[in-house]
């Protein structure tokens, strides 16, 4: 008997969440097949790629990054350059300078930076907080207001602050949020349940189920992504059908392979190449696991992953 191939297309699908406005708005999610299973069905939306910049600019200790952004004066110009990297779909502004244990930039200062960034780009904007629960709640409340109408995605709403973040960003200003859990499938689902029980519609939130650089506990991320996507599609679990956004850069550029200088470990070769390799391999892995959007930093990584996505989706 001849082999009869049956495409594995599910009646369940990943929710679609739109970020940004106008022609450059990006739709995340929509899949009804397993990631990259194009033999089962064509992906509705391609994996979106975000370029991360910081409130203080970019990491100029990496030569390729410094070179790419050279001549860009001020956060607006930097944001614009970030948005112009071939393959970039959105810009991610990380407000790490707001951390009370660091520079402790004020909410107003951050709001001014965010407004400048939003004004300089026409692609969607994603805002990352400083990871301090109290400060992030204050930041997101203010930024949701000053960025009203921009359809911004706030990363992240966690178990500790989801109520405040969801109320301020989604309910008050119709922005989008990302529910964050750290490689814990049960919590990932629970957080989505709690957010939905607030009356937040599925079109208004995505999730970040955790990330790790390849080689740094990535196997846990892989199994989490697999389990989440299988629950969403095979078990039609509405509480796990949110598109997944994975911050890759922050993980990839903070492991020793991306930090240690060439002088210290000459046999490893240039630091920059190692960082790009970490970023690209981690991003490719999470895309294979089901991420609908990744956040990257190096222009070379963005270009590489964009080529991968274009070839495979």
């Amino acid at each position: 008997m001849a082999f009869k191939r049956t495409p594995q297309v599910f009646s369940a699908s990943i929710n679609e969440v739109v970020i940004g406005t106008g022609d450059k708005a990006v739709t995340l999610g929509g899949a009804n097949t397993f990631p990259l299973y194009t033999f089962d069905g064509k992906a509705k939306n391609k994996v979106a790629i975000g370029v991360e910049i910081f409130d203080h600019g970019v990491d100029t200790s990496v030569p390729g990054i410094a070179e790419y952004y050279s001549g860009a004066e001020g956060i607006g110009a930097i944001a614009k350059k970030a948005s112009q990297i071939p393959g970039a779909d959105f810009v991610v502004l990380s407000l790490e300078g707001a951390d009370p244990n660091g520079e402790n930039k004020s909410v107003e200062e951050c709001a001014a930076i965010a407004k400048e960034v939003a004004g300089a780009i026409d692609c969607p904007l994603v805002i990352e907080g400083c990871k301090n629960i109290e400060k992030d709640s204050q930041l997101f409340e203010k930024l949701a207001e000053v960025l009203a109408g921009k359809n911004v995605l706030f990363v992240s709403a966690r178990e500790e602050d989801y109520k405040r973040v969801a109320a301020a960003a989604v309910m008050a200003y119709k922005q989008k949020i990302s529910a964050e859990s750290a490689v814990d499938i049960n919590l990932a689902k629970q957080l989505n349940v709690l957010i939905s029980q607030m009356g937040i519609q599925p079109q208004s939130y995505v999730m970040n189920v955790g990330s790790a650089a390849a080689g740094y506990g990535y196997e846990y991320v892989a199994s989490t992504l697999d389990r989440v996507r299988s629950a969403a599609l095979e078990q039609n679990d509405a509480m796990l059908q949110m598109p997944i956004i994975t911050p890759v850069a922050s993980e990839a550029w903070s492991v020793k392979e991306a930090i240690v200088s060439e002088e210290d470990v000459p046999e490893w070769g240039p630091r920059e190449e190692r960082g790009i390799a970490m970023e690209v391999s981690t991003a490719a892995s999470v895309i294979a696991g089901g991420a609908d959007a990744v956040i990257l930093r190096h222009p070379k990584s963005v270009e590489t992953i964009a080529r991968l996505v274009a070839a495979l989706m």
Partner: protein
Amino acid sequence: MGRFVIIGERIHCISPVIRKAMEEMDPVPILKRAKEQLDAGATYLDVNIGPAEKNGVELMKWAVQTIQSEFDNVPLCLDTANRKAIEAGISVYNRSKGKPIVNSADAGDRIENIDLAAANDAIVIALCSKAGVPSDNDERMMYCQEMLERGMEQGMDPTEDMWFDPLFLVIKGMQDKQMDVLEFIKQLSDMGFKSTGGLSNVSNMTPKEIRPILDSTTVAMAMYCGLTSAIVNPCDRRLIETIKSADIIKNNALYADSFLEI
């Protein structure tokens, strides 16, 4: 494995309210019952219009469209002895949330409902009986095989689209047959088949306060044996909590602290 499929049984013409609504084609009571069942956790809704010999075609079309348009194309189980009415219902049925289920065929007079399901790319509930209650599992299996052959001849995918009904039996009176039914579910499951059935049969004629206990215990034991669906009253909270818990234990659904609320 996918989650247990709860088929809500409460849109049934045996209920005076529903009978009246169907006679008058009044959507309000029907939509109310549909909503109650969906809110309580039903996946499919059974729509039993009775024999509907006169206006079955028109009534089933109306019921399917009325319910699906209100509840995001909720999948339905079309339940009537009137074959033309089932076909008519399927002709207006939206499949985006799941295939229609033909309720039901058996190995006797109603075997042609398998052909009907096959011709319309529907799921069929295949009751493992011919006339009356099968005396033992050998007889059940014989009927199962007859229907299986019929379905396969018609090109059905028997592991997906034929849901075998072991015929749940009333405890009060047929207590000694209960383990047979469970054993048969296990046999179906081992062969890779899906199964469903009218679960509340088991607690017929027992006191009202006892029924949820017997129903939920039966469903837990049956799910352990591999039952994949049941036609039940989703508004029975104990039963639904038991099904949801069993789905968690079977790893059919991912655990979250609020799993009983969703």
